[in-house]
């Protein structure tokens, strides 16, 4: 399988996660081709966020393997996943409210900036240069996401929509080859949701692999190359948007009849 070694390729094998007696994820196997946009959908409680947490090392699987670019990351701590090139945003925002907007994004670059203790304590010219570059790159990203005007504002001054974009900027700052977005459009109005749509397309265009958890079917159907449907922690269906949309099991468990979905998202 080519998914194995290619940059941004993810493979999940027989992945399971149980919390006591609750099987949040059961025996999940699928692959994400590099450079594609893969969406994960399913009713609430299906295990979507649990899956994201597993794919970023926040939860340890009770069984199965996670392979990223051919490397087995199973059981490693979350920062190891990040260092390997995986970035994510959170469903419940985890913005660093005790920092400014630009500092949030600069923090996202952490894995790219090895800095020794002595240069840090003495603030050597090399470190100062590193900081200037870091700030410049962060500002670029803020510009890309329309937040540059508030770069030096404290993060807690931003409205909800801006905070969601800030989290994306922070995740992008680490130059991830795989980006996991957990409900990026949740709580956004249709205009803002369309911008997220554009953003995801742009990212996919640059070769970043994107895995998206979303309820907004309009967004999902429009932007995805493939869709994974979860139900009660199990893989219900996997395929192209057209195939998934027509799949009777999916319609039954989640989507409802096709025309209902379109009316709801108009």
């Amino acid at each position, binding site marked *: 399988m080519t998914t194995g070694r290619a940059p941004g390729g993810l493979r999940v094998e027989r992945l399971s996660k149980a919390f006591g007696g609750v099987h949040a994820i059961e025996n999940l196997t699928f692959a994400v081709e590099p450079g594609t946009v893969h969406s994960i959908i399913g009713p609430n409680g299906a295990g979507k*966020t649990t899956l994201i*947490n597993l794919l970023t090392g*926040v939860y340890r699987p009770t069984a199965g393997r996670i392979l990223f670019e051919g490397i087995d990351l199973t059981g490693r701590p979350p920062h190891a996943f990040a260092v390997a090139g995986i970035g994510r945003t*959170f*469903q*419940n925002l*985890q913005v660093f409210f005790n920092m400014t907007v630009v500092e949030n994004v600069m923090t996202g670059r952490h894995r790219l900036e090895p800095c020794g203790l002595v240069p840090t304590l003495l603030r050597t010219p090399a470190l100062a240069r590193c900081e200037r570059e870091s700030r410049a790159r962060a500002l670029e990203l803020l510009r890309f996401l329309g937040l540059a005007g508030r770069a030096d504002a404290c993060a807690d001054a931003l409205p909800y929509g801006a905070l969601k974009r800030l989290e994306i900027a922070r995740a992008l700052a680490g130059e991830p080859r795989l980006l996991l977005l957990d409900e990026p459009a949740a709580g956004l109005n249709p205009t803002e949701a369309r911008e997220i749509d554009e953003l995801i397309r742009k990212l996919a265009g640059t070769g970043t692999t994107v895995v998206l958890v979303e309820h907004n079917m309009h967004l999902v159907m429009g932007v995805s190359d493939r869709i994974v449907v979860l139900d009660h922690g199990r893989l219900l269906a996997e395929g192209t948007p057209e195939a998934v949309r027509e799949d009777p099991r999916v319609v039954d468990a989640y989507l409802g009849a096709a025309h209902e979905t379109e009316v709801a998202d108009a």
Partner: protein
Amino acid sequence: MDAQWVQFVAGGLTVGSIYALVGLGFSIVFNASRVINFAQGEFVMIGGMSAVSLLIAGWPMPLAIGGAIVVATIVGLLLAKVAIERARRADVVTLIIITIGASILLRGVAQLVWDKSVHRLPPLSGDAPLQLFGATIVPQSLWVLGATVAIVAALTWFFRRTRLGKAMLATSHNKLAAELVGIDVKRVLLASFGLAAALGAVAGVLIAPIAFTSYDTGIMLGLKGFAAAILGGLGSFPGAIAGGLALGLLEGAGAGYVSSAYKDVIAFVVILAVLFLRPDGLFGALRGERV
């Protein structure tokens, strides 16, 4: 060997009961306000010292004890009303520093109202030691153990059967939800401080005949009570009791079998060991973060 063992257990349980009562005070206040009340030990001191004063003033023992508990409760209510309620929107750390200020203030007042010397309350039923299972036990120890059992039973009834008690439990589980169903959270806060102060005073009155009392006995007792509450799991009432008794027994065993100088070291080493194995205390619920 047998008699010695009984001796240590009796001594340990006695001191442990006191720690349990103080620890309960910490957990009750923590549940209502997320605050660690560093003045909790001072309530113990106020209880003991007030009883001494009232007794000297001629009050009969039962009234002196009752009066001491009332004095401490009033101080607790004042602390809650004047300081904690006013600062309730502040960071938990700020509130803790306020209670630290309160403990210094109360010690300062105690120095003025009383003096710096050590006082003793006469024991409730005399000094004559009893022989039980081969060990020598002072009757006051039995009073301490008995009173603690009675108080725990009373508290259990209070939290399960009375409106105020149930309101306090509800608030400790979810403050916002409690407010939304109409519970007066301010009243719960006041009641918690009052109750914690009363418990502290009872502990002070019970232990004063054995361990004496002075203006600064609150410091170490407060510390041990806090340790007991943490050991058992902060916020858990059975935890505070188990933690207090365990701490008392550890100290007794440490003093008896190793050295009395190192009894506190042994106790704290064990607490550290327990925390490494169970980071939320013996009875603490293991909480996770939802992301």
